[in-house]
């Protein structure tokens, strides 16, 4: 959480769900929506297009639905204009620009910006910023049973290439052929 506070956030709210092994998207969205309601007046809700681990890309849309707010997905540019937001979406062969009334939920794509690297002072200051840690009970929320079950989670099998080399020169040649050496 400190990482986010150092990179520009003013406050951090963490909801701890104990007794749950994996949080499926519908439950994460439910908890996030409730935490947002708890904050009070919120004008803009931003999410990544998908998480770094499961990448279900559902939570942004689900939160919008639960809060009954308009939602725009895969934004590559965001511009606030008074009480609305101008969002550009880079689609396969065109750019779509939408004007959305606030409050709204926007999910963003990775190439929208370059995240800043916080300075040492910002990192030190982050420790003093308000952090709120809540439990699901604090939000008066009862979590439903998970509707999905992860049956297996396996890395793809990779076949060894079994390339035999006699000397270093041949090894270099083989690596170059695979694009693993001498690039650029």
């Amino acid at each position: 959480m400190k990482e986010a506070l150092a990179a520009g956030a003013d406050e951090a709210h963490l909801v701890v769900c104990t007794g749950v092994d994996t949080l499926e998207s519908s439950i994460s969205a439910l908890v996030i929506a409730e935490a947002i309601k708890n904050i009070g007046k919120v004008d803009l809700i931003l999410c990544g297009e998908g998480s770094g681990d499961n990448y279900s890309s559902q939570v942004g849309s689900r939160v919008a639905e639960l809060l009954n707010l308009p939602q725009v997905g895969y934004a590559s540019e965001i511009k606030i204009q008074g009480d609305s937001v101008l969002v550009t979406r880079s689609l396969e062969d065109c750019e779509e620009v939408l004007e959305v009334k606030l409050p709204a939920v926007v999910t963003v794509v990775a190439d929208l910006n370059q995240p800043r690297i916080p300075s040492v002072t910002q990192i030190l200051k982050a420790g003093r910023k308000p952090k709120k840690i809540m439990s699901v009970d604090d939000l008066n929320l009862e979590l439903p049973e998970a509707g999905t079950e992860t049956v297996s989670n396996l890395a793809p099998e990779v076949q060894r290439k079994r390339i035999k080399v006699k000397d270093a020169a041949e090894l270099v040649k083989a690596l170059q052929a695979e694009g693993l050496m001498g690039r650029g």
Partner: protein
Amino acid sequence: MNIVVAMKQIPDLQQIRIRNRKPVLDDVPLTFGNIDKNALEAGARCKEETGGQLIVVSVGS
């Protein structure tokens, strides 16, 4: 203008090892997803433009 960024704490993908085709998550520190960091940056820029509060919300098990 109050902006909320929802971020997910995930195991650091650079430090996960694969054993028997399964990810080994022991002792892997938590970090935020890369795209979440882009969302935070977008929030920070909007906030700098308009003022207000930037709040990060995260859910963890």
